[in-house]
């Protein structure tokens, strides 16, 4: 069958799918996160030693890295979706995109640095 439309970019569709995949990952990790850090301690702030004791396994920093990456992607892509709805000027969209990218990269670096430093400190 002859296509009567021009093939457009699939970027939006991929972002839509990634938003759902990252949501599912963040959902599971966030529930685990709340049970471990907020509920098991019955609201008491976790002690430094207890937190450091949790990071002794190889999978813990890896899981945290997946968590930070997915949560940041999901959150900032969500902000971008809102920008796309309300900002129509090409210039301001570019400004917003740049800001979102900068905040995302800065927080990703800070988060990764924290995870790596903790993993390094415990050794």
């Amino acid at each position, binding site marked *: 069958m002859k296509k009567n439309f021009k093939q457009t970019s699939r970027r939006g569709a991929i972002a839509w799918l990634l938003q759902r995949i990252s949501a599912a990952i963040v959902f599971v990790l*966030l529930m685990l996160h709340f049970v471990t850090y907020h509920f098991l301690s*019955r*609201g*008491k702030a*976790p002690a430094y030693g207890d937190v450091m004791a949790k990071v002794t396994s190889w999978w813990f920093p890896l899981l945290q890295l997946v968590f930070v990456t997915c949560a940041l992607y999901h*959150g900032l892509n969500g902000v971008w979706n809102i920008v796309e709805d309300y900002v129509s000027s090409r210039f301001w969209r570019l400004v917003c995109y740049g800001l979102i990218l900068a905040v995302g990269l800065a*927080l990703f670096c800070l988060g990764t*640095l*924290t995870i790596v430093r903790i993993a390094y400190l415990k050794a």
Partner: protein
Amino acid sequence: MYTRRKVYDLSYFTFIGTWAWILNRLSGLALIFYLCLHIWVINNLTQGAEQFNRVMLFLNQPLFKILEAGLWGVILYHAFNGVRIIIVDFFKGTLAHKRWFVFFIGLAFFLWALGSYLILSHIGG
């Protein structure tokens, strides 16, 4: 016959789906703001036990515990409305999206009460 609604037709605001969408966006914005703060605060873990304990002692005040229970509520709303969105998108959930909304809000409220009890039970004891 399909009739076009006016752009500012306020009758949309009587729909459950409209409110689910508005609240999803507002809760999402609140959560991304919190995530930014959280990543920054957790960075204190790398400054050693003394600094970490100082920050935790500050955050252990009743005000922050109440905010924590509020955060748990916002997370639950966003998370379970998100599950509803995935059901609508992938599993023909559009047919009963309002019923799914009521079901998930009920579940979220139950989990919020349970979690808030655990978070706040520390205050004063």
